[in-house]
């Protein structure tokens, strides 16, 4: 991922989080918790993406382990 984009995305995340902090009193507690959790997850993924060779996404795991086996099975038939 481009470094400049990471900075821009980090700033956008901060601004959005600030807005969430301002607005959250008007929302239901359950809504507040879910939105907070999604922001937290996004932040953690952004931090993890700073480290190279860290594979987070489950789709990549499935693709790396399941797809080749399936391809091999199809080719054999």
């Amino acid at each position, binding site marked *: 991922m481009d470094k400049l984009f990471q900075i821009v995305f980090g700033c956008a995340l901060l601004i959005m989080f600030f807005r969430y902090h301002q607005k959250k009193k008007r929302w239901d507690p359950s809504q507040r918790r*879910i939105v907070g959790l999604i*922001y937290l997850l996004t932040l953690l*993924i952004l931090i993890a993406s700073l480290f190279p060779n860290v594979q987070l996404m489950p*789709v990549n795991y499935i*693709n790396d382990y399941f797809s080749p086996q399936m391809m091999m099975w199809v080719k054999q038939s």
Partner: protein
Amino acid sequence: MLQRHVINHRQVAWLVGGVLMTGGMIGLYQSVVRVSRVDAWSFQIIPIIYAVLIAYVLFELGHAFPGKNLFEILFLVCGKWVGGFINLILLLYIWMILVIDVKGLSYFIQASLLPQTPLEVILLVFVLLMMSYSTLEVTARVNEIFFPMNVISSFLMLCLLINEYDAQRLDPILSTSLKGIFFGNYMTMGMFGDVLFFGAFLPVFIQPRLFFAGIKHGVMIVGFTTSLVMLALLTVMGHIIASRLNYPVLALVQQIHVTDFLDRVDIFLLSIWFPSFAIKVIVAFLALLTGIGSFAGGTQHKPFIPSLGLFLIITALLSFPQVEDVERFVGYSFTSVVLIIQVPLLLFLWIRARIERRRTGNIKSDFPPGTRYSQFYGTMEWTSNLSILGCLLTVLVGKWCFEQSMVVSQYVAVIVMVLLAIALVTSYLQMQTVNRYLHKTGRKKFGTHT
């Protein structure tokens, strides 16, 4: 929030059509052609049956739990914890569809239109566009413009390619093994499984039977149109070239050379395809919002939009590092994941819906038997169902005939296309019959929900 929306049967059919038609254009065709070779034109038959079965389960749910969406039904039936866990899996499934589409589309736009623009910027702009749509009603209305244009442009493309066709590229037809043909169908089933996320909008569709007929008609439009596009792809390029291209449909459009001044038709078509792709992603995003909203009591979706948008951007960027990864996933893994999630869930929901309908004494058909409408509806339903099954049977018989004599198998593709056309027309008549009956009896009330 969803209850206030106004969606009619035509919009349902076209939304389903828009969602399914664009789903396969990125990353599916070449994988199917690689496996099914010259017989890739039959790649829609089993998926059509699967999509109709999903629509039937949604129809049963609509009857058994009026006014509830799929997520609410799961909470109601399975309780807070088990229902929450199943809903979480469903949310992961919708997120997976979104990541595939957003990333796949970003690669597609970069390859076809904006080669110098960084992928991150394309993805960001696309997600921002997606976030601006917060209701299904607006999406359905936008789709009413672009879906017909998409279908018409597909037929127009087939006409403009007339000087490029070579039927010999299909020879020897039905020479692929039965397993190869079946696997081409299996790969497409994941794409047709997308019908399930219309379960998130169940309260919007007031009459379940009209909703079912609408979905079935949408599925048939896609089945017929994409089969024709695939047939054109095979007869213009042949299976070897088509299986090696990243975007075979784009390459197919680039083959149009009508005159010297009209040789970049792909630019026109991309301006139609892009909004169509966007609509598919928007519908999936709205389903995701509905699902997350159900965890918070299902009142308002708007507070989730910015946070989910950002989450989607970062996860899409980290998924599928290469364009080939999207193709490999869609072709070889996606259907397996979809079937593992959907089949047990659909079976469970169907059984629960039947039990619920029996418990409340709501098992009678909403069409009174013996009327002119119910007779015509029954005839159309049987004709379309038999046509779909007939496609499957024709391919099987054709394959058997190929072993005996190659001459008979030549006509199989034509018979399948004719049967698909019959199923398309009869599904339309089925939908219109329900609509007219509801109008006549005054049971169709848009914009209200009981």
